[in-house]
């Protein structure tokens, strides 16, 4: 069986297709407008979606994919009464010890307490957050010091009045913020033993938990927090809470869900059913974020699909007109030996050339659109290979899908009738 020659001479065929299209420049340009809009929409959708995905991934990674957070939460009056009736002690070191003891997959447990204490000599443009935490907190949160050292177990045991400053706090304090100097927190002097590395914080949009701004933190040993008056605890609603947050690390990310279930049971039992805490799993946040993203993608995808559908119908319309207009040419080509497949390929090539050109222009305008979105709306966007390839591939498929019927009609024409067409 003879293979179609056109497949062996694709460059020639594409060249002829482009020349035929360029015969009617305005018509060609108008006919691909729909495809341009559709491809632009697809590209923008992918880039915004990818940007949002990356952003939430970074945020979740900052919280730690192997971590589970237990946060003390504010209670309503009814809840407070229930807490007293249930004799819930609030979030405390006992919870941390219980979790460590009873959860099989747990490798480490850290905890902290946020304090309302002011750091003297700090400029007004920053508001350092003083937190008292366990020695393993820095390690578990993967925050490292650029100068000096982190808090140690010895600092806890010896109740040392030492602190580690966030990068911005240290810089803000100037010479006074150097390791070895002292900083006044409320009425007490704390020796600076370390300075944290600068931290690129991504704000988590979910209200459930936020990655702390380590740049503006002052970390002191948990034992040293006792010297601050109980009133200074910002956990004012649940004054009895010893801690603000417990961070539990499990062995592997796939153990997070099962461990979170166990923790919820332990906490429910220990707190007498009083919900004065919240168990937050970053992975769950990621899933929620992905779910929202999917909804967003479906909406934008539908818009893009409709645009492409409209564009495709425009292409089919113009190809039908082209076939009708070039009936005689079809007859000539058939008389010169073109098979039906050759005619199909010829018109399909024209349709695909049309939509691919539209795709290319759409990708270019889409890139500009993505840039505008990130510049004006300040949305995080990401242009990946997929955001180029998928719209272009879609434009080719649109060309094939909507060009096939006109091409088929052209191929099925009676050569003699086509030759006699006036």
């Amino acid at each position: 069986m003879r293979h179609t020659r056109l497949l062996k001479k694709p460059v020639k065929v594409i060249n002829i297709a482009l020349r035929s299209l360029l015969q009617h420049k305005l018509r060609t340009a108008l006919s691909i407008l729909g495809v341009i809009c559709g491809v632009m929409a697809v590209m923008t959708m992918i880039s915004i979606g990818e940007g949002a995905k990356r952003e939430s991934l970074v945020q979740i990674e900052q919280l730690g994919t192997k971590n589970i957070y237990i946060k003390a939460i504010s209670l309503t009056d009814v809840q407070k009464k229930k807490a007293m009736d249930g004799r819930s002690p609030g979030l405390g070191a006992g919870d941390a010890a219980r979790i460590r003891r009873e959860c099989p997959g747990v490798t480490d447990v850290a905890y902290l307490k946020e304090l309302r204490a002011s750091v003297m000599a700090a400029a007004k443009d920053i508001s350092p957050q003083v937190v008292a935490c366990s020695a393993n907190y820095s390690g578990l949160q993967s925050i490292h010091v650029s100068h000096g050292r982190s808090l140690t177990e010895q600092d806890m045991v010896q109740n040392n009045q030492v602190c580690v400053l966030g990068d911005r706090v240290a810089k803000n304090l100037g010479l006074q913020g150097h390791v070895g100097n002292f900083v006044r927190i409320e009425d007490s002097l704390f020796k600076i033993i370390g300075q944290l590395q600068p931290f690129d914080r991504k704000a988590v949009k979910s209200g459930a938990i936020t990655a702390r701004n380590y740049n503006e933190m002052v970390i002191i040993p948990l034992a040293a927090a006792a010297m601050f008056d109980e009133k200074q605890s910002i956990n004012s609603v649940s004054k009895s809470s010893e801690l603000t947050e417990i961070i539990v690390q499990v062995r592997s990310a796939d153990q997070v869900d099962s461990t979170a279930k166990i923790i919820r049971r332990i906490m429910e039992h220990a707190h007498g059913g009083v919900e004065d805490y919240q168990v937050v799993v970053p992975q769950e946040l990621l899933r929620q974020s992905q779910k929202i993203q999917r909804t967003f993608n479906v909406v934008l995808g539908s818009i893009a699909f409709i645009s492409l559908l409209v564009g495709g119908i425009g292409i089919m319309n113009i190809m039908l007109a082209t076939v009708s207009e070039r009936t005689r040419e079809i007859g000539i080509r058939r008389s010169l030996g073109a098979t039906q497949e050759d005619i199909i390929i010829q018109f399909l090539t024209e349709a695909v050339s049309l939509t691919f050109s539209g795709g290319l222009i759409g990708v270019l305008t889409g890139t500009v659109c993505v840039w505008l979105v990130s510049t004006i709306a300040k949305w995080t966007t990401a242009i990946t290979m997929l955001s180029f390839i998928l719209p272009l591939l879609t434009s080719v498929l649109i060309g094939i899908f909507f060009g096939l019927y006109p091409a088929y009609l052209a191929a099925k024409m009676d050569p003699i009738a086509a030759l006699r067409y006036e």
Partner: protein
Amino acid sequence: MANLIEANKICKDFQIGVSKIQALRDIDFHANRGDFVAIMGASGSGKSTLLYILGCLDRPTTGTYFLDGQDVSHTTDRELSHIRANLIGFIFQTFNLLPQLNIYENVEVPFLYGSIDGEEIEERVTRAIRQVGLLHRLKHRPSELSGGEMQRVAIARAICMDPVLILADEPTGNLDSQTGLDILKTFEELHDHGATILLVTHAREVAAFARRKLTLRDGKFIETYPITEEAR
């Protein structure tokens, strides 16, 4: 040696509404390699229908047609296309050039569908255009040519594949008498070089250039006779 064309008892019917029209009735037509045959007839006599059947653009309703020893009356559409691409060259009254392509590209079109590849294409296209004397107009579009020049391009396109049979449908119908004469002289030259030409016309003076003349009326040959040198 077998005839190049052996068409026996060819009938062609067309169904128009409820009535059936017999365009060709029991046509027997034979031609050897190197023949130059003119088929004459008035409008509606069936000469173009016969030309399209002999040119493998159409199939007879009944009868057999052997071209170069191959039965082409019962072949598939794809095979007919293959035969047209490689064995037959068409020349039409209205030239039928593709307006978006230049002269070179127009002559190159049959190679998109034929069995010749590579550098031979360029060689053959150039040779064909040289043969019709239009090498200096390679890059011109059909719209920039005169009628005679367009028909010469069509001749170049018809001969570039070295077909066994050249079919011409009223090739001088759209030309003035002098240009028509030039075109017919080109046909004579092609015939002198061994080409087999089948020419359909209603004009006696055109048919006179052929070596044999057949006249069709109502789908049947009514006279067949050779044309002498003197008659021409």
